């Protein structure tokens, strides 16, 4: 009996030591990034005022939507500030838009309309012009609403829903038309040199995000999903040069970090159409339920960082390749299901994920259709997959929590 008690005490001591050690490492690691977090938070706090000041000095603020089909490089090269509108996750703005569009427009798209109506988020009402990528019907409708009510200059950037053949020239031409429009609007010439400089800058940003993302392959990850996504979101509003500096610093510190203590948290791949700035509920619940999201395949809301833009030759063709061809297509694109499935499977393998959470927004018809296909194909491979949908209402938080907790248990326990 005495021997057993000793064993139990030893085991208990070891467990407690592990917890204390993990806490110590976490605190130390946290301290390492605290300075950068503070720098970024201060920058984002002051950013609206900086932009207002810039506007007074004649600099144009050019908005666009996420999804990675609008090359920021062209906007940046025009001497304007590219600003990706990415707020989402809150029912207030989405509901406010119901006076303009019906409920079948997805909550993210409605939130964009609502933000401009409510005038609470400064970025939304400081725009001089807006580049609307014509991707899905939801975001297209937002651009149409703004165009119809005439309170914002709109450039509609047609996104061919194929990534090969004759459509590439169409997209290149539309990018050239965007360049012409921006030149006329800002009075600044957009030279190849300026576009090249912008490509370099954004390539650095993508490169750093990719490096940070790849760090998450280690188990457990050095940076939480929430922190990574917040960084990503910050990159849409922050000054790009400043953001590169912050990312560089964060990456260096993450590299130097001690690996955190092992946990048994299931590693999860998050897939979905959209993750807005503030739409963090699922990420938080997964963490609270003991899971760990280790990578994401999100169309709108995550800057696409897997590929860089080639900075040689005809730059408009380079941008076309980078933004349309050499990337994983969103679900609204033609022939995308198989390509997206292959990419998801690659992520599962590379990030050693043991389950998938499919988080879609209500009324997103292409992702909803694809969820069936993915569930079937993942099922064939015994990869558990949970499909969640949200209209940003907090009313379903309890239900989400129950479903996520049950899913994490299933993944932990292996396949049923």
């Amino acid at each position, binding site marked *: 009996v005495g021997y057993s008690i000793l064993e139990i005490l030893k085991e208990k001591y070891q467990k407690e030591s592990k917890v204390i050690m993990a806490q110590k490492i976490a605190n130390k690691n946290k301290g390492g990034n605290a300075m950068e977090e503070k720098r970024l938070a201060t920058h984002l706090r002051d950013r609206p005022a900086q932009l207002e000041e810039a506007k007074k000095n004649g600099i144009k603020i050019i908005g666009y939507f996420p999804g990675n089909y609008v090359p920021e490089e062209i906007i940046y090269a025009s001497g304007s500030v590219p600003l990706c509108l990415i707020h989402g996750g809150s029912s207030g703005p989405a509901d406010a838009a119901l*006076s*303009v*569009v*019906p409920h*079948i*427009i997805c909550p993210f798209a409605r939130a964009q309309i609502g933000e401009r109506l409510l005038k609470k988020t400064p970025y939304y009402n400081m725009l001089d012009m807006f580049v609307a990528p*014509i991707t*899905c*019907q*939801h975001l*297209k*409708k937002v651009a*149409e*609403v703004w*165009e*119809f009510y005439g309170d914002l200059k*709109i*450039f*509609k*950037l*047609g*996104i*061919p*829903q*194929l990534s090969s*053949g*004759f*459509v590439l020239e*169409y997209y290149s031409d*539309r990018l050239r038309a965007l360049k012409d429009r921006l030149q006329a609007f800002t009075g600044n010439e957009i030279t190849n040199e300026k576009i090249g400089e912008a490509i370099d800058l954004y390539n650095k940003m993508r490169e750093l995000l990719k490096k940070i993302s790849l760090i998450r392959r280690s188990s457990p990850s050095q940076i939480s999903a929430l922190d990574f996504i917040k960084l990503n979101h910050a990159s849409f509003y922050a000054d790009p040069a400043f953001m590169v500096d912050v990312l560089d610093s964060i990456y260096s510190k993450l590299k130097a970090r001690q690996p955190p203590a092992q946990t048994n948290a299931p590693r999860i791949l998050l897939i979905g159409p959209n993750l807005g700035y503030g739409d963090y509920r699922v990420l938080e619940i997964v963490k609270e339920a003991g899971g760990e999201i280790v990578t994401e395949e999100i169309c709108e809301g995550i800057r696409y960082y897997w590929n860089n833009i080639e900075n040689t030759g005809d730059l408009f063709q380079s941008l076309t390749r980078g933004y349309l061809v050499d990337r994983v297509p969103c*679900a*609204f694109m*033609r*022939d*995308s*299901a*198989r390509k997206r499935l292959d990419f998801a499977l690659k992520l599962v393998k590379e990030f050693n994920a043991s389950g998938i959470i499919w988080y879609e927004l*209500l*009324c*997103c*018809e*292409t992702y*909803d*259709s*694809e*969820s*069936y*296909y993915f569930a*079937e194909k993942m099922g064939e491979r015994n990869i558990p997959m949970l499909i969640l*949908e949200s*209209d940003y209402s907090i009313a379903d938080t309890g239900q989400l929590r129950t479903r996520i907790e049950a899913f994490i248990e299933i993944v932990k326990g292996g396949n049923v």
Partner: protein
Amino acid sequence: MIELLRLCGFGAQEIESELPRIEKAFGRLGITAEDIERGKQRLNKYYDIELKGVRKVFRLLMWEVIESVMARDDGKTKIVNGFMAPGTSIIGCALMSKSKEVFSAHHGWAFMPIVGCIFGKIVPVLEAAEKKWLKAGAVSHCSNVKTYVGMTALNMIPKPDLLMSSGFLCETAPKTLDLLHELYDISVFNCFTCQDREFGEYLDGSKRAINLAATSTRSLTERIREVVGFEITDDMLWEALNAKKKLDDAIRKLRDLIANSDPLPIGPAHENLLFCVNNLTMSIDRMPVAVDAINTLYEELQERVDKGIGVVEKGAPRVLCILPPGGTDPILEHLASEVGIAMVATDNRFLLPDVIESEDPYVVMSLHLLSSMANSPSKRIPLIIDVCKELNVVGVFDRYHVGCRTVAGDAMMIKKAVEKELGIPVLLLEWENFDPRTYNHEEFRRRLEVFKMMMIKKSA
């Protein structure tokens, strides 16, 4: 069965010779004796089936359904189908006119009025699709698209050698094609364009969008050539376009007669029949049969107009409807007539005035992009307002198709603009044009009655 076929314009000799084939086709569609009885009742209740022209139209629709189901049995070696692909019925016409071995159809436009409107049996088809990727519920998938998936899942139609669709209006149809390819191994092709026309550069933007659609459609015919083994020449397409133009003209003339008559000479449920016939895929040989059906109906309605006969009383409030009528059930249009509202026209038949002329048949096939619903609100709404003035309507009824983000998304903007500009009431009613389960009789009746009162009060 024989009586039903007579109601649908079949002659005695034709019934005798074709009955076994029709019975076989009905069997595959799951049409029972009970359904046939219901079909007869619904034909008599909802349609002016005493009009020869209406019967002739039903005959055309019935033929396309039977031929679609029996295509392989009929010895067709190649089947090229379309769904949600405006303009491609011309290619189908060219194909079937060139070769008797090829069959082409745009199923929904015949299948929905026959299986849905006549037999009232569309729900099992929709449910079959909902068990696949087009689930029921708040996501609101388009039931027009569900119909094709349901038909495929239930093996109602033979597997095509090529299935074509387009993304002119939405992403649901192309995504469905993508999944039909992945999960059912069906060869597919998507035509497409970019909906990036801006208000300020509308004509240039339209030319750009139409040229892109034309180029895309040209690559479709390349693909079809690989499937059917012969080339589709521009001459073949012009022949089809010219034949189709006669039908377009006849339908336009008929619609003008209906829209400008008081009392309304025929119920608005029939507008769906015109819409469907206009979108059928017919060989050049069959086109005159369709023209004859429409002209017959025109003559019959002209007679009613001359005699002052109508389906609602003279002076009933005249309304413009937004979007085509119910595609799988005529009940809402029937209700509107019962309430005493004259639904004189739908906006989708009107084109924007900027005419683009071209010698390229592919450009002509893509001109549907000038129609009301293919345009953004900045152009669509002024068009609707002009049509309201032209038709002298006292209200607008926007029964918006909840499964379509493109058209439904404009509803509130249309209401605000029309009320502000014209001072006439606009009724917004959310429903699904292709799903009778969304019909709510009591609610809809009350809303239409109040709408009618508002129009009378405003006009007084």
